[in-house]
């Protein structure tokens, strides 16, 4: 694990690496991949954060940003994906502090593939603006956002998939799911598709729902407390997001961290 306290340029080694951000300052971090790599970034504390990543031609990179901050996380991200590169950026937001995240992912050259995915257990205010832009033909963009909104939670996701003119045979997709436990809980998801090219595929799917009272009663009738039921159901709802990570170590890491944190938060 490499600690990060100041603005840093990181040339990532091949394979798996871990970083931990812990600082009071505003910082900027640049991750540059040279070969296929998998990156686990723990955010303990930070001022305003800027993250840039660069994936050169042909490399595969998975990032997992795991938010453990107890204060507001205000982050701006720019992800550049070059030709035939494949980048997944996953977010674990299972903490008790607000998050404001602005993400821009650019699929720059032909064959670029980019995925943003998030799992959020929302007990405060989480606001995400996500943009995935297809700048070149034959590019593939996707966003998957899964959230469980708890009693005091407010969730706002503005997800924009954009295909510019000339980026033919490109795809832009997104899936959003939100689940709440009581009436009056606050979740807003705005899926947007801005398409300037004709020869493309684009889609968005969204579902929002409330936990069935009968389901809660059924689990409780076997001895589980409301808190335990909430945790079990939330885990079941958010866990599929771990499948977006193509690296087994990262997948396992995310699963374990989610199980541990969710029991705490529910």
């Amino acid at each position, binding site marked *: 694990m490499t600690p990060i306290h100041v603005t840093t340029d990181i040339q990532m080694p091949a394979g798996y690496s871990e970083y931990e951000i812990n600082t009071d300052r505003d910082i900027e971090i640049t991750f540059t991949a040279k070969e296929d790599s998998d990156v686990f970034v723990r955010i303990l504390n930070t001022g305003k954060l800027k993250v840039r990543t660069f994936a050169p031609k042909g490399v595969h990179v998975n990032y997992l940003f795991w938010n453990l901050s107890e204060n507001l996380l205000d982050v701006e991200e720019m992800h550049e994906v070059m030709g035939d590169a494949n980048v997944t950026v996953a977010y674990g937001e299972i903490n008790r502090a607000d998050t404001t995240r602005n993400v821009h992912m650019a699929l720059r050259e032909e064959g670029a593939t980019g995925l943003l995915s998030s799992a959020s257990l929302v007990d405060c205010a989480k606001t995400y603006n996500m943009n995935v832009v297809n700048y070149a033909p034959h590019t593939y963009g996707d966003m998957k956002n899964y959230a469980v909104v708890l009693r005091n939670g407010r969730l706002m996701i503005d997800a924009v998939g954009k295909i510019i003119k000339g980026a033919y045979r490109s795809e832009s997709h997104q899936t959003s799911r939100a689940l709440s436990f009581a009436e009056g809980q606050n979740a807003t998801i705005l899926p947007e598709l801005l398409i300037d090219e004709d020869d493309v595929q684009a889609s968005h799917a969204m579902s929002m729902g409330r936990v*069935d*009272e*009968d*389901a809660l*009663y*059924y*689990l*409780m*009738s*076997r*001895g*589980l*407390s*409301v808190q*335990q039921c909430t945790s*079990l*159901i939330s*885990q*079941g*709802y958010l*866990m*599929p997001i771990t499948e977006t990570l193509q690296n087994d170590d990262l997948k396992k890491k995310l699963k374990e961290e989610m199980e541990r944190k969710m029991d705490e938060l529910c």
Partner: protein
Amino acid sequence: MKTLEIKDLHVEVEGKEILRGVDLTVKENEVHALMGPNGNGKSTLLAAIMGNPKYTVTQGSITYDGKDILSLPVNERSVAGLFLAMQYPQEIPGVTNSDFLRAAINVRREEPISLFKFIKSMEQTINDLQMKEDLAHRFLNEGFSGGEKKRNEIVQMELLKPSLAMLDEIDSGLDVDALHIVADALNKLHEEDHMAMLVVSHYERFYQLIKPEYTHVLVNGKIVLEGDAELADRIDREGYDWIYKEYNVQPAAAEEVKKVSASIGTCAVRQAATTEETK
């Protein structure tokens, strides 16, 4: 000795009074049959004992092992030893049987059960109920057939070992083989752990297998008749009409019976035939 004691129980659902003064006592190791026509309060009684939030107790008391059950939340009633095998078990996507059952077992223990011990007892139970081996890893009841759901209720019962099991038409949806498997599992829990049972079923066949010693007949929210196993047998042969006449009671929810006659199928045909005969 753990005893369930119900006194003068009145229960409402959505403002409508379903139970209108029920008294019932079930002692440890006893097996009781709860009978009565559809829509007359059998399921309501079981749901009220378990604490289903849709059912409101407006009067009366329920105690178990001396504890005031009505003041306990649903999960604590379960930990106190009550178990309701439901008529329509819920499907819970995303939650695996094993995660759910391990959590449910652990709330009954001071130390969490070891993974090895849990897997062993889960395998044993799956084997007893002749369920598919992948049950543990499947989501709770999701995509299960009707019969599998019912058997899964008994899997849970066998692992949680309640002292009083309530069975709400657990036999419906089971084929003959499954019926025997379920009855064997129940009898084993009854014999080995002295589990008491309060059983709702319409079928004499199931009662023959689990042999209730007491029979209660619930008509229009009240227990109008009590007896031994012979009473269940007579109801199976003769129906409920003689009870309505002898005890001067009217069953509730006559409209439900009418609904049947409006549907197409054997029931409608039979209904039409009987109407013809009475003419």
